């Protein structure tokens, strides 16, 4: 189910950053989004940056390394390539690519500069992680970073750090550009900041209809706006439809569901009716009604942002490589309206 206005600038979006509070299913949504975009058909890079191997577990493929590896090929020709970005490899590759360092590169390693940059110096990690995504975004089919060849990837999906850290993560290059006021790092940081602030980058927020994740989502949207970044869609994950209609919910909330007729109905279909069963069912109904109320309040808060909202259902058996395709199909109308085939074909 999709509501809200779809921002026309999305047509230009190439880099889809997916964030959300921990436990909201960020990796699942990023994976489903990559599949949906690939069905256009398109070549999509799906990256993770925290070394958690969430992508390989979602797709049930061997752990991802620092090489880009195809994880899904769709019948229509689209594909999803997976990558687990690792700061040290990214730094060495970067130095080789842009400085052709040779012996000096090995010296940096020998003197501990690489370890310093990737583990001790805080913040540098984030610069390197985003830098790798930036590089993949610019790369052409022929492996070069300029020229007329088609881009290596039609779209990139980033399973990014959680909402608590996303603003800092995405603005780290702006800070670096301030620190290094001239020189190659400065221009690189500036270029990355330009990409992140351009219409090419959108940040999608994954949430549950619970108090804290919604609060963090709203705070994050404000922060993104303030930093000149573009919030994309709100993806409400694990949505459960109410099992009672509004009148019944109302009665359940107030403890006014009619006990005698419940007893009669249960007995009618051969259920052994005990006072514990009836009282328990009514307690469960009251909890359910309260939960539905809470979820509706939270949904209203999200709708007030004016951002497009996609709701994904709770999967009773949890997520696996099959169910992530079902979720991808639900994302199609918003992210790949022109897609030729369903992902879950």
């Amino acid at each position, binding site marked *: 189910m999709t509501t809200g206005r779809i921002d026309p600038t999305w047509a230009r979006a190439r880099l889809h950053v997916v964030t959300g509070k921990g436990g909201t299913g960020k990796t699942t949504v990023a994976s489903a989004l990559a599949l949906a975009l690939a069905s256009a058909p398109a070549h999509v890079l799906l990256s993770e940056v925290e070394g958690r191997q969430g992508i390989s577990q979602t797709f049930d493929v061997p752990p991802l390394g620092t090489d880009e590896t195809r994880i899904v090929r769709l019948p229509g020709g689209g594909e999803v390539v997976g990558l687990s970005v690792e700061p040290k490899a990214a730094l060495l590759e970067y130095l080789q690519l842009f400085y052709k360092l040779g012996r*000096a590169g090995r010296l940096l390693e020998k003197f*501990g500069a690489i370890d310093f940059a990737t583990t001790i110096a805080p913040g540098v990690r984030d610069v390197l992680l985003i830098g790798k995504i930036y590089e993949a975004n610019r790369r052409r089919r022929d492996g070069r970073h300029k020229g007329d060849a088609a881009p290596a990837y039609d779209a990139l999906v980033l399973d990014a750090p959680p909402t608590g850290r996303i603003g800092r993560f995405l603005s780290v290059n702006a800070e670096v550009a301030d620190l290094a006021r001239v020189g190659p790092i400065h221009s690189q940081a500036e270029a990355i900041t330009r990409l992140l602030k351009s219409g090419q980058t959108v940040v999608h927020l994954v949430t549950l209809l619970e108090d804290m994740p919604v609060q963090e989502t709203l705070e994050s949207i404000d922060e993104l706006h303030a930093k000149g970044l573009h919030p994309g869609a709100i993806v409400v994950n694990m949505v459960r439809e109410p099992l009672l209609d509004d009148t019944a919910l109302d009665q359940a909330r107030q403890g006014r569901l009619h006990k005698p007729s419940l007893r009669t109905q249960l007995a009618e279909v051969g259920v052994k009716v005990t006072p514990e*069963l009836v009282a328990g069912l009514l307690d469960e109904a009251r909890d359910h009604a309260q939960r539905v109320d809470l979820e509706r309040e939270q949904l209203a808060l999200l709708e007030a942002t004016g951002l497009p909202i996609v709701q994904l259902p709770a999967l009773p058996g949890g*997520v696996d490589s099959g169910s992530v395709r079902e979720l991808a199909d639900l994302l199609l109308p918003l992210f790949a309206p022109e897609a030729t085939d369903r992902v879950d074909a």
Partner: protein
Amino acid sequence: MSAGPIARRAPALDVDALIDDPATEIVVCCGSGGVGKTTTAAALGLRAAESGRRVVVLTIDPARRLAQSLGLTELDNTPLPVTDIDTSRGGSLHAMMLDMKRTFDEVVIAHAEPDKAEQILANPFYQAVSSSFAGTQEYMAMEKLGQLKATAGTADAPWDLIVVDTPPSRSALDFLDAPNRLGSFLDGRFIRLLAAPAKAGGRAGLKVFGVGVHLMTSTMAKILGGQMLTDVQTFVNALDTMFGGFRERADETYRLLSEKGTAFLVVAAPERDALREASYFVERLEADGMPLAGLVVNRIGRVSATGITPSRALAAAESLEDGGGPKSATNAAGLLRLHATLVRTAERQRELAERFSRSHPGIPVVQVPALGRDVHDLDGLRQVGSALAGS
């Protein structure tokens, strides 16, 4: 369930025994984000205080409402007493939110010469590192823990139990690496090179580094740009004087954490991903020989009705729906379906928790039922506390 010597049932985690034991001086709650770690820390702290302990709770970036429930309205960086708690058993409760920049500033001011401190605080590289770069939080949380421990038992700091929440990321355990990292960094050639490039390039330096040094510094200048290299050098140079102290305290905190008086609680939600992260935390703590008290599995679905299996409930619901009966039949069917869903969810969650226990036998576990609403006052925290204690 078959109870062989390999697949044993997990022992129960007795939270009350843990917090009532005066030998327990530090409780560290760790786990991935969104599992109720901060709530668990706050609830434990309150429960311990109301059972007579003098407690301080150190939270990192708590949700606003939770912070309000502890009377915290803004980052303050010093523990404030929490009022409205039951002090009849002689306990007390303080709470604070970590302000990482201020903690860092305080370290600089306390350990560097006044003129040098000023130089550090004004350095652009320092300002970026201390306020906005990821990773600093972990170091500063441990620094703060060390401070809280050092002052414990004084008039302004009456606590005998410190409950710590950790940053919401996998790097939450980075503090375990801090002493080693700082150590290798300090003993490394790189810092000497950065801190004193002129000296390293001089006679003494040439002997150690050879001709590589010049190539090295010119490479650094090429990559970083001359001005940034100077900033970094000023920063490292200025910090150099206080790094020794840094390292000592990091070693001290590490020792503190590995001692008997500390208990690590790994917090998880009954979801595959959260429990996978919990495994990572447990393995990491065991590898470091840290005292692991057990696992808290939060938010297990609540089931109230008894006496009917999910499949029986679904079959009955179907018969009611097929019968095309009155509104009360539709409602009864809805209630039965709801019950079946609740039981199945809770079963799946317990199965996930048991799977964890099968691969980590012997680790005490407590399963905490879900509450209807998010916690936003002391009463809510009390409820979580008694659920944690299994009552």
